[in-house]
């Protein structure tokens, strides 16, 4: 999982305005100049010409200093890149261009942010980065199909031992790194060793919590066969091999693990083995990838697109304009309020697909007014979540009642309509919990005379979360709960909610992105109460027992009833007020073909995107 702050546009930032100094003109203008004297001093007109010329020179210099067409400059690159990139170019140029009407063209993808941490799978956990790593630049051992069942990728076959003590992968022997070296089991071993080495500080180290970490955990049986030992059985034991790109041993073996993060491999000159090879990265501006013509036919062969450009455009209005003026072909994750404009445009169409994140209000059960599950249920029922979805998401989303998303096999259809908007029932629950209205319409109090007041925090610059807090303020007031929305800067907010001995919040509007496997251990297990994400402080034996068991049940048919029980329990306990699963949107330009997206992400089918020949950009094929 990862936290999204969804900070959106930076337009909410306030910047001090440049101030003009007071007028400092000389009170005693100097006397009349003689013509001769004038000539010795550069005239204003001339200095203006000089200035204008220097701008032109700067522009021209910037325009010309880029080497021959289509090539990148190695100037100023770290030594590692100067050595590696020419090898990549040399290897890729030994292959023929694939023949066929679909092959060719440049796609431009526009998105709001950088690909944080770049193509180094060992240090990154960012969603966009991992999409580019796993579907474009690197290869994972496995992929998953639409039903989230594992399918072969770099691993041709795999076998999990009956007693779940180890898993053996047999790798393809026709995969090459973009510099021409073959990809082997030693690369997998290298990736595993580095990923499980604490020094590396691989963010997703917990992927391998159920494996035997370090050198003892791995056996290279031959160049293309590798066995990894499992320490404790886990239901989704193969999932890490879908999520983590394999990294090249021959390039990175000598880098100390603690320095992998800052190695130029990540952002300056990554070398992968996936269907797209790295071409260029300009900070905050763009990433360019080119087709890998050596990509194995058995895996679908080289991608149709010749070139792929990822452009960073930090403002959503600009992104929309660029989509409508066809300067970008795919607009990643437009906000719901732009959906009608994209739908109406002749230049683009809108794709909506289910996704893995949900938005909720996390409650701090340590607070006396929130300790009672009846109060939390009442809050959820007093919030008109349908209205929230319709208003904030324009209907592109689903009401949530637990953290298992509707596309997931473990989703419990039966709880879909639970806790529907019902203020009478909410009032009844609050009465029952001992919070009574002293007079109609007043804020409820309990027997000790405490008022039912809650502060709901959200982060700066996130309009959606602000709207949610304000809607809840209005709707909860109807049932006698006083809500105070409170905005806090993101890093400060994280500090307030994540620090176990601080927990300075009543409620917080926030979101989680789940992995393909759902595991709420860190959120709700009582052993994690004093860990950063034990926000709620909930300690419930039934929850603990289910979370412990669910980890171990490999058979989905066996697991489904337990998952149902767990979701029903969450409805009852409402540790969070689950709000909604937003659908993810994408704007797709009219020249694009084959753009399909699903819960696995925007880039899942990127090798099959294509552009009809007569609609391609003029240059660069």
């Amino acid at each position, binding site marked *: *999982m*990862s*936290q999204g702050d969804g*900070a959106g546009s*930076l*337009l909410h*930032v306030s*910047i001090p305005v*440049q101030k*003009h100094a007071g*007028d*400092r*003109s000389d009170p005693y*203008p*100097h006397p009349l*100049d003689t013509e001769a004297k004038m000539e010795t001093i550069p005239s*204003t007109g001339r200095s*203006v010409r000089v200035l204008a010329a*220097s*701008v032109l020179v*700067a*522009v021209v210099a*910037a*325009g*010309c200093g*880029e080497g021959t*067409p*289509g090539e990148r400059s190695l100037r100023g690159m770290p030594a590692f890149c100067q050595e590696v990139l020419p090898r990549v170019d040399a290897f890729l140029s030994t292959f023929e261009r694939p023949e066929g009407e679909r092959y060719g063209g440049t796609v431009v993808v526009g998105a709001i942010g950088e690909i944080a941490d*770049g193509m180094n799978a060992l240090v990154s*956990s960012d969603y966009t980065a991992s999409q580019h790593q796993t579907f474009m630049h690197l290869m994972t051992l496995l992929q998953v199909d639409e039903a989230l069942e594992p399918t072969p990728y770099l691993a041709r076959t795999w076998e999990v031992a009956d007693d779940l003590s180890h898993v053996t992968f047999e790798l393809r022997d026709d995969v090459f790194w973009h510099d021409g070296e073959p990809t082997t089991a030693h690369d997998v071993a290298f990736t595993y060793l580095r990923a499980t080495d604490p*020094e590396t*500080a*691989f*963010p997703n180290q*917990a*992927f391998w919590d159920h494996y035997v970490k370090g050198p003892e955990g791995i056996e290279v049986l031959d160049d293309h066969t590798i066995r990894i030992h499992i320490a404790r059985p886990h239901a989704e034991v193969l999932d890490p091999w879908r999520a983590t790109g394999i990294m090249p041993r021959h390039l990175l073996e000598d880098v100390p693990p603690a320095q992998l*993060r*800052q190695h130029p491999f*990540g*952002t*300056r000159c990554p070398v992968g083995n996936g269907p797209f090879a790295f071409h260029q990265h300009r*900070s*905050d*501006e763009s990433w360019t990838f080119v087709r890998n013509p050596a990509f194995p036919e058995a895996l679908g062969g080289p991608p149709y697109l010749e070139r792929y*450009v990822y452009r960073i455009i*930090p*403002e959503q*209005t*600009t992104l929309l*304009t660029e989509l409508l*003026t066809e*300067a970008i072909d795919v607009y990643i994750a437009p906000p719901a309020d732009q959906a009608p404009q994209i739908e109406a445009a002749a230049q683009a169409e809108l794709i909506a697909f289910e996704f893995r994140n949900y938005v909720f209000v996390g409650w701090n059960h340590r607070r006396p007014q929130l300790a009672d599950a009846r109060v939390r249920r009442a809050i959820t029922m007093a919030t008109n979540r349908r209205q929230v979805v319709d208003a904030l998401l324009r209907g592109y989303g689903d009401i949530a009642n637990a953290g298992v998303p509707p596309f997931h096999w473990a989703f419990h259809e039966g709880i879909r309509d639970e806790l529907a908007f019902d203020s009478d029932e909410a009032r009844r629950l609050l009465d029952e919990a001992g919070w009574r209205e002293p007079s109609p319409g007043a804020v409820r109090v309990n027997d000790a005379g405490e008022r039912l007041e809650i502060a709901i925090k959200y982060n700066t610059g996130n309009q959606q979360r602000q709207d949610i807090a304000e809607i809840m303020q209005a709707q909860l007031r109807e049932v006698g709960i006083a809500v105070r929305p409170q905005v806090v800067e*993101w*890093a400060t907010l*994280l*500090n307030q909610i994540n620090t176990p001995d601080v927990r300075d919040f009543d409620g917080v509007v926030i979101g989680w992105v789940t992995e393909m496997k759902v595991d709420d251990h860190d959120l709700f297990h009582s052993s994690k109460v004093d*860990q*950063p994400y034990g926000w709620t402080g909930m300690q419930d034996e039934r929850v603990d027992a289910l979370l412990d068991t669910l980890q171990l049940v490999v058979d989905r048919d066996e697991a489904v009833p337990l998952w149902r029980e767990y979701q029903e329990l969450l409805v009852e306990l409402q540790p969070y007020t689950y709000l909604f699963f937003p659908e993810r949107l994408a704007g797709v330009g009219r020249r694009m073909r084959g753009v399909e997206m699903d819960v696995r992400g925007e880039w899942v089918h990127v090798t099959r995107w294509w552009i009809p020949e007569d609609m391609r*950009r003029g*240059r660069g094929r």
Partner: protein
Amino acid sequence: MSAYVIRRLLGAIPLVLGIATIVFFVLNLAPGDPVSIYAAPNISPDVLEQMRRNMGLDRPVHERYVRWMGAMLTGDFGVSFSRNQPVREVIAQILPNTLVLSLCAMTLAFLAGILIGVFQAIRQNSAADNALSVVALFFYSMPSFWLALMLILIFSLYARNIWEWPFWFPASGMTSVDHAFMTPGERVRDRLVHLALPSISLALVLAAGIARYTRGSMLEVVRQDYIRTARAKGLPEWRVVLKHALRNALIPVVTLLGLYLPFLFSGTVFIETVFAWPGMGKLVVEAIFQRDYPVVMAGAFIFAVMVVIGNLVADLLYSVIDPRIRYD
């Protein structure tokens, strides 16, 4: 003169180091944590702790300060936490973008601002003067990001999709994606069309202010006796205005130039955001949000140096314009 410059520069060293020190401590003592962008469930606190160690954040603040100061004095700004890249490399990539944009914008702004200001002053209280005053105030009080969005709407979106002009401006970016495949001539054109909207939206706001200053200071100057003398001795009017009046009226404008000089390097986060122009403003603001200390420190250091240099340049320009100002 050179002795003066050296004296000023030496005097600036403790100032800049003082600024850097204050920024360092304010930043490091503020709440927030650079590794919190990685914080998530199933990411164990040990991993975050190790990240902090790898970034050198486990050391006490004073020790980090000494180390940072030592490295900075040798020109090493450290490695960016959020970009995993040496700060020097990042700035080497970003700073030229900002320079090109702000140099263009400032050139446009001063050219247009001075011309309009002079025109208004010599036609004082005419209909044109009043109209230009209104226009100047209109742009001066307009938030630049809004102006930028309007320009994009008109010259990019509407121009292309609704009015179907033969030519429209790109809404964002520094070059088009085909840039690498263009001939040198096309590349220059490509750069210029991408520069147009961002530099105009920056320049309009600046020019409005400059025009007001120029007009005010020109009005003061044209009433002076020596202007009457110049006219009396039969000099052509343009000569009186441009050579005798304008030169004396430029002193406050030069002050402005000194004030705007740091802006050449700092960029403006709004314009950069709206036009997807990878510049210093956005770099530093994002770094602040992500608690990317090395980048923020490098940014603060550069801006501090530029403020000092901007003031120095302005002071030196006074002596160029006004021979009675001497620095010995």
